[in-house]
């Protein structure tokens, strides 16, 4: 008899493939908006780049192939309902198994190596991989899984600065703009800029990843001050002229998303994590009676 764990394993495997093939609707819409803007502004190279990106997405749809060759490091965000009857260590081990199966059965390029010896594991799994971020939903009997294959070009553009409180908001803005300048053409712009404010150093980085990789484009932070900073930074980043693929244009970023936590009186942590234009993620919800609902980039 099929168990909840069998369903988790199959769904987690399929989500890896879906995330690599099917670009979320919010990303598609933002890229199309970028193309229209560059066309209107007469930026012919930027227009050509965005046109190629959209053609590539269409080609992947038509041929049922991967959008990009970078199969990333697998990151799973799992929200377990407090009424869902699952054993968490078993859930984790099934998600690891799902990554191995996704890699071998497709076959996907495996990227996971030992950080010192650079020896390959060959399965896109290993010590600490896949990355599984667990959270809990009160009262629910469902399990929600979102998968993001985080590519290296954008992930290499990760930054942390424990600023002084006296540097304030101005220091935060200055640091973020420096990060964008340093990233330049490297993370495959137009990028999604994730910013984590507050917490301890590790929390700030995790918030930045949540912001870059798991939040939809068009979503604003519920805190009005934070939302205002998102808008201001998006405007300024697009004024830099770095543009699609760093070849010039007004579409440097598709979104700036900020997540935050309270912090210490002596801290002013700012973390930046970039996501590339593909913004890949795929989601599914598994109910207690093993019904599965898939969402294009979110539920």
């Amino acid at each position: 008899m099929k168990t909840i764990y069998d369903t988790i394993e199959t769904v987690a495997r399929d989500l890896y493939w879906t995330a690599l093939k099917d670009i979320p609707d919010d990303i598609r819409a933002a890229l199309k908006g970028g193309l229209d803007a560059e066309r209107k502004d007469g930026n012919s190279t930027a227009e050509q780049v965005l046109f190629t990106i959209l053609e590539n997405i269409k080609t992947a749809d038509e041929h049922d192939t991967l959008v990009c060759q970078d199969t990333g490091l697998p990151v799973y965000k799992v929200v377990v309902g407090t009424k869902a009857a699952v054993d968490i260590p078993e859930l984790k081990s099934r998600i690891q198994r799902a990554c191995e199966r996704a890699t071998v059965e497709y076959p996907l390029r495996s990227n996971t190596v030992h950080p010192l010896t650079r020896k390959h594991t060959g399965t896109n799994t290993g010590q600490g991989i896949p990355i599984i971020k667990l959270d809990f939903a009160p009262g629910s009997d469902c399990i929600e899984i979102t998968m993001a294959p985080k590519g290296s070009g954008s992930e290499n553009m990760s930054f942390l600065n424990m600023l002084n409180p006296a540097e304030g908001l101005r220091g935060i803005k200055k640091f973020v703009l420096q990060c964008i300048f340093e990233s330049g053409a490297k993370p495959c712009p137009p990028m999604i800029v994730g910013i984590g404010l507050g917490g301890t150093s590790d929390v700030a980085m995790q918030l930045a990843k949540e912001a870059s990789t798991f939040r939809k484009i068009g979503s604003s932070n519920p805190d009005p001050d934070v939302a205002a900073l998102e808008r201001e930074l998006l405007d300024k980043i697009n004024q830099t002229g770095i543009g699609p693929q760093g070849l010039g244009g007004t579409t440097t970023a598709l979104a700036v998303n900020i997540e935050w936590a309270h912090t210490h009186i002596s801290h002013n942590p700012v973390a930046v994590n970039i996501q590339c234009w593909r913004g890949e993620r795929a989601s599914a919800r598994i109910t207690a009676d093993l019904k599965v609902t898939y969402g294009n980039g979110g539920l």
Partner: protein
Amino acid sequence: MADYKLQTPLSEAQVRQLRLEDTVTIDGTIFGIRDATQIRIFDEGIAPPVDLTGSVCLHTAPGVRKLPDGRYEKICIGTTTSTRMDRFVPGLVEQYGVRAIVGKGGVLEASVQAMQRAGAVYLAIVGGAAALETLQIEEIEQVWWEDLMPECLWKFRVKDFGPLILAIDSHGNSRYRAIQERAAARIAAFEL
């Protein structure tokens, strides 16, 4: 701004005529190289087992399936960030005669100067657009250094590979440099 269709191998005259903003499409052969490939060539001092004179090199590590006869079938072939491998560019163009590097993200000043001295160019592909790129690669013709999988030295046969954007020419001009300089000035002028 002109469109060129070039057949490999490339001559110095062919690449010297190219100017920033030109677009290039390539037919013939392209070699795939990545971090580990170039660490072997330049840091371990092991010469590539094939003549790269006049060649086009692509910064890539493909996704492949090994067939029973030992050949490789393409699954997904795309482009990785060149900047990470910037320090190998002078060696590729000056020591091994590579005429064009296809990548994303660009390379830095010392490489721009080496390309000017040697007569080589940098062609920008759209990073992440691997579904299209895979269709433009007809076949994986040969592979060396399989122990570095997937960062082997690959030989691809290509047709209508592109369009690629001429982003660094062989006359010391870099579109990336110009855009970054402009961005630095604009950021400095922001009121924060």
